[in-house]
């Protein structure tokens, strides 16, 4: 039990710990590790990591309440494996104790990895296997422990919890205006407990009516505004399915509410309702009291199904994908194997849905209502992607944070359930890679428009890594209400604090801000590709592509240097001229480098 020793090694191992997201954190963590008691840290020597690529590697393993750290110092250079325990979704003992007295453990990870270890284990010894400790720390929720995010007290220059201020964001969109008002009706989360406190609704719908609308919408998730077009006033609104049921129930208030949404946009006398589900699934929901809007009840509304499958289908698809990409890729039939996972097909349907929404709003100048069943999975994907296409602000580093905070976190995407933070129950049917799909879609867009996003691929990967790491409070809990109850902004650090403290690492230098530029990605299998930089990153046969932007940075530095030199010379010339004929003194001074920006 080398507590402080292991803690030290974590800090000093910086140069060889190779995961950049973790790596760059170490400088902050050095402090953390010493101030937070690491009495849980346990080290075991003589553990074998059975690497699927390199074979068996012997070394020592340290487990703390945040991370699992394996190193092999016999090798030069040292081999290091370093991952947050939060990423582990399952710890399983494989087989019985072998003849050599070794037990084998498999760790199934949420980030497309499986790790296998073996170590000597004396039966009857009082010492627990180190993997029982992994079991303990990886699943704090199941073990009635605190998440590491609550221990992590690293101060950052900026408080990321302040990145998103709903009022400021709505103000940026020009809200409230004559047609839309900001309501505090949900201040105490009693209209809808999974919605944020601040909502934007049609101006002519009073708060009392909202409650009646809520009664007709699943989980009380009423149609509210997500985004408004600055010129046409066409809006993106989101909600959950109407509680139509088998008998085709109707709600006057709900119909009025949608009518008000349509009326708020003078440009169009139509309203498009995008139901994210396949029509069959939508119809099947009637059995459970849900369903979809009938065009009879909602005049001038047109209902479109987007054929996106539910969370269970997506989970299964990712499972298949993992089989195809990890650990090894079959040399033949790669593309058809990839196709059989349907992962890219799902990505395509989501992007296509978002594109149709964006196109209706931009080209059709028509307001749209988006929902699925509960309005917190597919709806979040669609509304946030459509907003990303429509509004350049969300394509900036900070804008994207606002987008995630707004459409995902405040509107109650159930991160706790979908990811299963700290929960041992890896078979939980509520788990699903919905957010991962969203980030994948964003990545696809960055591929098609390499200069349209202020952030880079590393930013997206970092978000995903910390989606699972439980180092930050950002992705904990299921709703805004829960987050406030847990007092997360006070007790944990936001991921954005970390990111914004070193934003240059996450910035795409090719970014150009084109005002009012709507992105229309080509949603075709011809252009969609598997995100190898994420899904295949563990494969040692893959080397990350030399990113363009690194080259760009080099060039920027070179330009700066040249500009400096030119200016120096100009000054020199100016000086000389000033000495000689006085009438020409002015001219060289007026020759700044025109090209410098």
């Amino acid at each position, binding site marked *: 039990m080398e507590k402080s020793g292991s803690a030290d090694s974590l800090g000093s191992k910086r140069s060889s710990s190779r995961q950049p997201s973790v790596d760059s954190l170490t400088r902050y963590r050095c402090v953390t590790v010493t101030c937070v008691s690491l009495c849980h840290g346990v080290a075991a020597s003589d553990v074998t990591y059975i690497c699927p690529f390199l074979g068996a590697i012997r070394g020592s393993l340290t487990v703390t309440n945040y991370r699992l750290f394996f190193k092999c110092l016999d090798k030069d250079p040292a081999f290091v494996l370093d991952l947050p325990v939060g990423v582990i979704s399952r710890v399983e003992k494989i087989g019985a104790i072998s003849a050599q007295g070794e037990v084998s453990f498999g760790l199934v990870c949420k980030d497309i990895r499986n790790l296998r270890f073996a170590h000597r284990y004396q039966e009857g010894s009082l010492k627990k296997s180190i993997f029982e400790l992994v079991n303990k720390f990886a699943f704090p929720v199941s073990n009635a422990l605190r998440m590491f995010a609550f221990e992590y007290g690293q101060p950052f220059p900026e408080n990321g919890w302040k990145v998103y201020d709903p009022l400021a964001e709505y103000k940026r969109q020009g809200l409230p205006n004559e047609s839309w008002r900001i309501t505090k009706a949900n201040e105490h989360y009693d209209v809808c407990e999974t919605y944020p406190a601040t909502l934007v609704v049609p101006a002519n719908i009073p708060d009392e009516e909202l409650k009646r609308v809520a009664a007709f919408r699943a989980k009380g998730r009423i149609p509210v505004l997500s985004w408004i077009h600055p010129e046409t006033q066409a809006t993106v609104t989101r909600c959950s399915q109407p509680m139509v049921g088998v008998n085709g129930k109707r709600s006057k208030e709900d119909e009025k509410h949608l009518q008000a949404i349509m009326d708020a946009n003078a440009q169009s006398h139509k309203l498009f309702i995008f139901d994210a589900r396949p029509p069959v699934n939508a119809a099947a929901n009637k059995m459970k009291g849900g369903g979809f809007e009938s065009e009879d009840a909602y005049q001038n509304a047109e209902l479109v199904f987007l054929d996106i499958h539910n969370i269970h289908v997506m989970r299964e698809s990712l499972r298949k994908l993992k089989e195809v990409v990890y*650990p090894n890729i079959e040399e*033949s039939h790669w593309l058809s194997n990839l196709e059989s996972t349907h992962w890219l097909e799902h990505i395509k349907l989501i992007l296509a849905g978002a594109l149709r929404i964006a196109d209706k709003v931009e080209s059709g100048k028509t307001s749209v209502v988006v929902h699925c069943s509960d309005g917190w999975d597919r709806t979040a994907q669609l509304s946030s992607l459509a907003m990303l296409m429509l509004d350049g602000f969300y394509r900036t580093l900070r804008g994207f944070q606002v987008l995630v905070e707004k459409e995902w976190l405040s509107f109650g995407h159930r991160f706790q359930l979908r990811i299963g933070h700290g929960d041992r129950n890896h078979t939980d049917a509520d788990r699903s890679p919905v957010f991962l799909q969203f980030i994948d879609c964003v990545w696809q867009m960055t591929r098609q428009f390499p200069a349209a996003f202020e952030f880079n691929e590393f930013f997206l990967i970092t978000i995903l890594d910390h989606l699972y790491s439980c180092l930050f409070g950002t992705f904990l809990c299921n709703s805004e209400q829960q987050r406030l109850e847990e007092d997360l902004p006070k007790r944990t650090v936001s991921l954005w604090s970390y990111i914004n403290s070193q934003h240059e690492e996450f910035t795409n230098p090719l970014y150009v801000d084109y005002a009012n530029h709507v992105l229309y990605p*080509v949603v075709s299998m011809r252009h969609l590709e598997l995100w190898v930089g994420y899904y295949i990153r563990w494969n040692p046969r893959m080397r990350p*592509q030399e990113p363009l932007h690194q080259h760009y940075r*080099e060039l920027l530095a070179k330009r700066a240097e040249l500009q400096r030199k030119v200016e120096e010379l100009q000054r020199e010339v100016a000086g000389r001229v000033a000495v000689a004929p006085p009438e020409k003194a002015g001219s060289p001074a007026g020759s700044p480098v025109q*090209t410098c920006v």
Partner: protein
Amino acid sequence: MFSIKPLKPTLKSCVPPLQPDMKKAPQLTIRKLEAKLLPGEIVVSEVNFVRKCMGTGCSQDDLWGKLICTNFKVSFVSHEVLDRQVFQYRNRLLGDHDVPLACVEQLVTVNEAKGKQKVLLSNRKLKFSPTELVLYCKDLRVLRFRFDEAGPESSRKVCLAIAHYAQPTDPRLLFGFEYVGKLYRPPAGEHGGRLQTPLFICPSDWDREVKRTGATEWRVCSVNEGYAVSPSLPEHFVVPASLADQDLKQLSCSFVGQRLPLWCWNHLNGSALVRTAGIRDVAEQRKLEQRVCNAITKSHPKRSSAHKVHLDRSLPSIRDVRASFVRLRQLCAIGPYQESEDKWLSSVESTGWLDNVRAFLQQSVEVVYMLEGKHVSVILQEEEDRDLSCVISCLVQLMLDPHFRSLVGFQSLVQKEWVMGGHRFLDRCNHLKRSEGEESPMFLLFLDCVWQLMRQHPAAFEFTEIYLAVLCDSMWIPVFSTFLFNCPRQWAEYSQDFTQSGQQGEDRAVRFPPVWDWSQQFSLRDQTLFNSPMYVGKGVAARVQNGGVRTFRRAKPKIYSSMVRGTASMQNGVLGAHATLPRRNSLVLRLLSGSETPAQPDSPDSASQCFVRDWLSRPADPHGLLLPELLPSHLQLWRFYFLRWVSEARIARGGPITALHRLSLLVDEIETLQARLRQYGGTSTPPGLPPGSPDPGLTHRMPSEQSKMYFKTGPLAGPPQQPEYLSSSFPFSPVGNLSRPSTLGTPLSKLLSGAGL
């Protein structure tokens, strides 16, 4: 009888194709609908009131005009002129809607009313008058013309003329002979510096290459002068110094096509890359092989024996390559767009094209390993030594020698291994439509392999994918010596014919222009599209050219180390590493070399795989050895080439070009600054300025022609705007769609109208 419609004044700049850089100001001319003809080009047949179908959808975007068949091209001239602003680059030999006859793969005539359809071949009859003509082109375009309003007889005649002229039976009927006979003068000397590409016709080019690579034990021989020994070898080539001319003559009889072993390249460790044909005489085989191998061994500084690779056995045949290409073309360019969407990935896979690309890259890596890792010479053997070995030898040299990754270096490589190596371009392109069996897109396959390398190592190549595509397209313009002949002798013979029949009685032999004389096709400005802004460090390439022989080693990353470190950090892997450390997988080697070899869970690692892994574990140096990653997930369809004409697949205002655009602007700015700096250096050394003259720094005489970048920083300060016309298929365009203002939504609305979602 010509145009009854009112003629619109047009703003078309009339640049005569063969007066490079004498651009006239755009003139306002009233233009009749006439084809622009090149010297030697004549109109064969034409028909008016033809509709050219634009895109696949509605007909309202169609263009009206005249369809003309000449002895060179199928030309469509229209009253409506594409907006120059949009249509940024132009070919001097071809108009916007023109297709060279040699580019026509197949022509199909349709009569809708009669429900008839016919693939038109040369000298066949056409019994119905066509209402529609569809041209399937070798560059993957598909063009449709409708004759609803046109005279039935002239329509029929034009179709027959195209069919006839597109399928000549004799090389002399190829347009190049008319064109060159009339006009071409090779650019005088080094003037303009455009033709720095050595053609390897004269011994000095070979000699320079031998010196550059430090191949001391090799000599240039002229035993094949007058093509006395082998018809398909160049007159001069390089052989082991230990073989005398007499030996060579004697040896040659036993090789297929009398093709003696041909030196390609030397590694600085002394290992050589040699290509050779098969040996005809089975009885003599062993003895001969021994002699050749001994000679090559003698030329190795360590006398290590050479390693022979039988390309025929390990690689797909030219027929396999053709079959996979035909399938891929069908999928990408011809088949309906929406239908292939669902099964796109498996369809791409089943074409087998990417597998072929991978096989050739893989084989090249093996050869690289022998040369670089095992320090032995490699002999590439192929039965005829004129197809597979061209691809492999080029790829190997590209991976090993940074010189060939510069533009001039690459051109010299193609000239050396393909043109002088005797690749049967005439047959493989099937310019004479003789036998389908001989046709094979080997050169395209090679370019695709280069593209894969380039995609993985963008900083290592001086040229862009636009260059590769344009080079490929040039194969279908039958005027360039590069792609017109089966071997150097054929080229020499036909050139000879000209001087003898010499209408002009010039003292100088008329040659066909090599494609490397890019001013034949493009203005200097358009040629800058070839230059990649990502290319780093021309310095090294220059040193190599100067004959320094120690530069293609993996250099220590110096200035670009931070780039590399960034690369490593993108890995975000458990096994990721810092550039300062040898990276993760060097471990592999250590594990393997250690006493306890761990069980390899995946594949049995061959030594060459270890070599690759070890290389991958280190930061790449754009001027060192380059290896491709060969995981199937890392090879991609060359979308730019294969999908550039498909309007639905075009990303408006997006695609890799937008990143390139940004980089170009920056590079241009840097160039401007450097030029400025030089000026200041020049003007400030003589003390003071000549009185009265304005400060040179003020006047804008940044010689803009010198800029290597197509995209330049504008005179205005402020954030550079991305031009509207950029798209994923720039500078090509799915013609028509681009010429309309309202196109942004076109593919989208088609998509949104329901199908396939």
